[in-house]
């Protein structure tokens, strides 16, 4: 699998900070680009899934990285405005 276009590390952050950081990062990326996110919050994965569901982004992969850290790669899809 190819490397992602951008990376975001939200380890150590608690709800809702990962969501805010994610929203900022996604805002700076163009449609079709991929973003790798690392987080260790207990509800981090659910948060990314909810974000992607509401904004219609695509989740490419979800990989546990040992401990509580989870790596998620998402593809940003253009939202019609």
């Amino acid at each position: 699998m190819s490397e992602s276009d951008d990376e975001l590390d939200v380890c150590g952050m608690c709800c809702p900070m990962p969501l805010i950081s994610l929203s900022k990062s996604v805002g700076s990326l163009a449609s079709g680009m991929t973003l790798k996110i690392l987080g260790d919050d207990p509800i981090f994965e659910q948060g990314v899934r909810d974000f992607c569901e509401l904004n219609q982004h695509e989740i490419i992969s979800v990989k546990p990285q040992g401990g509580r850290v989870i790596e998620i790669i998402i593809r940003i899809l253009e939202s019609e405005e």
Partner: protein
Amino acid sequence: MPKTKANSATILLVSGELDKAIPAFEVALALASMGDHVNMWFIFYGVNSIKKPRSLIYRFKKLFKKSEPAPGRVLETDLLLQRVIPFLNSSSNALLPLSQLNFLGIGSRFVKYIMHRKGAPSLECLVKEAVNLGVTFKICQPCVDTLMLDTENDLIVKAEVSGVSSYAVDVSKSHYNVTF
């Protein structure tokens, strides 16, 4: 206007007081009885309305017990002093305080007695009915972690530990949103 399909509702309970918990559950039950899907969210002391009553001895013993992993808990960042919170936060589903005229719990007991005399359902009864009607209970994760809440053993209902993102999804899908 007759409705064609079931709506959904999200109710957020922030306050741990009897006079706010009862309307929250009554609104939830009314909407659930009409056939709507109801999500109830609990944050901070709002969780007290679905907490099991625990004796002083039980809470005192728990002060010295090692914390066990539970959904939504991060044990590595726990503080020793944090254990005082579940010890002091004694109010439960059986006896929540009133926001006014509580008088160290006497007011709350008096209001409960009056409601019993009038045939009004108690909070315990409302929670049971909510479970029977299929209301979904969700608790905010930072609150679970801060209040050292064991969601599997301390609650009288089955509750899911979620974050503000799930709340955003629930609210955007819901037709009715109420906050108490």
